[in-house]
């Protein structure tokens, strides 16, 4: 196939031969060292700006350091980051979940275990007696959030599954998962994103009405 080469690749390649100056090692060596030294001096004399995102760290006196002293300093995850699950509560504190098993079905890692129960005298008939997520099995794909027809499970906690010292501790039950801001009306938490450069408060229930939005 030909998409219109001006010259043969070979001709252009031969220009790539090192010149004598480059063959003497020293010039390119010194240039390379100068690049690294520039980083060194900038970082030595600058102060570290750990509160803004890497890309926004500019200005006089700000050094180029991109890493942070984890865990004393933590970088907030962007809005919409798929973090630790939470079971969304209703305003009265009970889970929104109606134990429809959609999330457990959609889960590729089969990490969700649900046992359904019935309320006696409620408009809402079903609720999960047990709702457990094995965070060691979870692959954080977000399919459960997408599959939920009740907006009852979200991954907007802004944190990740914590480190545990034994495997059973990684199985999060209903009490552990239930938390965050309560939600009365379903909203599309998967596709709605808070605009960037603002940190969405944990479990915020603002907006979230439409998808594909610009």
């Amino acid at each position, binding site marked *: 196939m030909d*998409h*219109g*080469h*001006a*010259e043969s*690749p070979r001709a*252009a390649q031969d220009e*790539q031969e090192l010149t*004598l*100056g480059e063959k*003497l*090692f*020293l*010039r390119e*060596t010194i240039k*390379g*060292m100068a690049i*690294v*030294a520039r*980083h*060194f001096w900038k*970082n*030595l*004399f*600058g*102060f*570290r*700006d750990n*509160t803004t995102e890497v890309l926004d760290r500019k200005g*006089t*006196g700000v050094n*180029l*350091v*991109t*890493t942070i*002293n984890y*865990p*004393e*300093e*933590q*970088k*907030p995850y962007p809005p919409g980051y798929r973090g*630790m699950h*939470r079971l969304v509560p209703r305003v009265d504190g009970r889970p929104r979940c109606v134990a429809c098993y959609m999330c457990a079905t959609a889960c590729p890692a089969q990490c969700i275990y649900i046992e359904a129960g019935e309320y006696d005298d409620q408009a809402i008939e079903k609720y999960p007696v047990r709702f457990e997520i094995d965070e060691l099995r979870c692959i954080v794909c977000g399919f459960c959030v997408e599959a939920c027809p009740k907006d009852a499970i979200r991954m907007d*906690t*802004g*944190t990740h599954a*914590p480190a*545990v010292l*034994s495997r*059973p*501790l990684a*199985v*999060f*039950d209903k*009490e*552990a*998962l239930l*938390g965050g801001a309560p939600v009365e009306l379903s909203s599309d938490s998967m596709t709605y994103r808070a605009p960037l450069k603002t940190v969405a408060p*944990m479990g915020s229930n603002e907006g979230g009405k439409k998808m594909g939005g610009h």
Partner: protein
Amino acid sequence: MDATLTPSSRLASSDIPTAVPVKRTVGNWFGWLIGGWAMFFAFLFGLSATMLGVVRLFAGFDEKKNSVGGTWEGVGNILILMLVFVMILATLLTMADRKWSAMMQDRVGPNRARLPGIDSPLAGLPHIIADVLKMLFKEDFISDGAARQKLLFNLGPLLAFGPAFCLFAVIPMSPEVFFFGKRISLQVLHVDWGILYVFALASIGVFGTALAGWSSDNKFALLGGLRASAQMISYEVTLGLTLVGAFIAYGSVRLDVMSELQGATEAAIRIGGSDPTLFFGWLPAWGIFMQPLAAIFFLTAAMAEIKRTPFDTPEGESEIIGYYLEYSGLKSGLFLIAEYVETVVVAGIVTAIFLGGWHLPWIEPALCSVLDGLWHGNGAALLAIFQVMGFIIKVLLVIWVMFLARWALPRFRYDQVMHLGWKMLLPASLANVIISAAAYLAGGREAMAMVGLVEIVAFVGYVAFWGKKPAADAPDAHGHAADPHAAPASH
């Protein structure tokens, strides 16, 4: 699941740590900058004064007051220079290497170790303690194969570390000076064979690496040992030849004589006025101005000799891991610290021969007369403190350059190291010997400085200007022209 294991409180918001904003104003930062450097220089001043003071203390036991080189002064020097200065500096360098590399690579660097009660990383300094403790208390594991040659296996790190440790003995850190009524100098050995001692002992280090490689009973280690011995022996030659120009210039192989000759003599300093040794009246009589290329060659060859990147083929951690592959614990630590000690020594030699040793450029006589006024005619002793400081700062600078090369440059291949040593550095240093000798015969050291200046100008021209093409970007992109019928989709 057992209810007691339920981590119900895990998601309580108090458990989720949040970023702690660090508020720093520019003024605050400026204060840190000034304060930090002031502390650094104060520390250096204190260190220098202490070193001189301790040596004076020991030298007090000697009989003669007006000559250096007494037994007790030697003991004091061994203690203060080799055991304290070199070892402490080498230990600090293990940390500096990590912290400086972090700065070069836009990282925070080591920050986890904490001193008890202090909740601050202290710029990573506690890691030194952590490292040492780790090295000391790690299991000293000896594989079955190595156990068969246990003696040689154990001898390896000793032979690598021992000679390196002894090397600093001939390096002078201060001039001979009357310090509180006693003539002392910060140098262990005042011997005529000076630098030859370094060459002789440095070659012993080969045994350490070769033995380590062989007795480890590991193919990777053996390859590393072979590479190391070949490389170190090859670079011995170049190492010596690069310095011949300097020998010609100073007429001595004694490092203290070489250092002495690169600045005002003691008598000139006491007289005051301007430094009479300045070339052409303005250029410090430093070796680097007489032998600029030799300085670069020597630094290169020395880095190859001590096997630092980009010449670390014997280690080459991503290829063959290295001759110390089978070592653990303190023995491994000895190999590592030997490398840092060698770094300090090389920096010391470069400083002593090429960077004027302890001499401060231009200001020595003037500074001395100022200090005389400050302290009842004892200016020379005070000046010595500043001179030691100058020496330490120069050493740190050379070390920094070596580390810079280490982190910036890729590694040579084994045969390319040999190629560089035998086919490029060796002829170049031979040519340097001839040119230097001719210049010296023509007009002594001033003529050498003239040649050196020409070399420096040529070198700067080569680095900065020669072969600079008008910005030829995208060297390899000459592929497809844009697809002509690709209409950009309307927005």
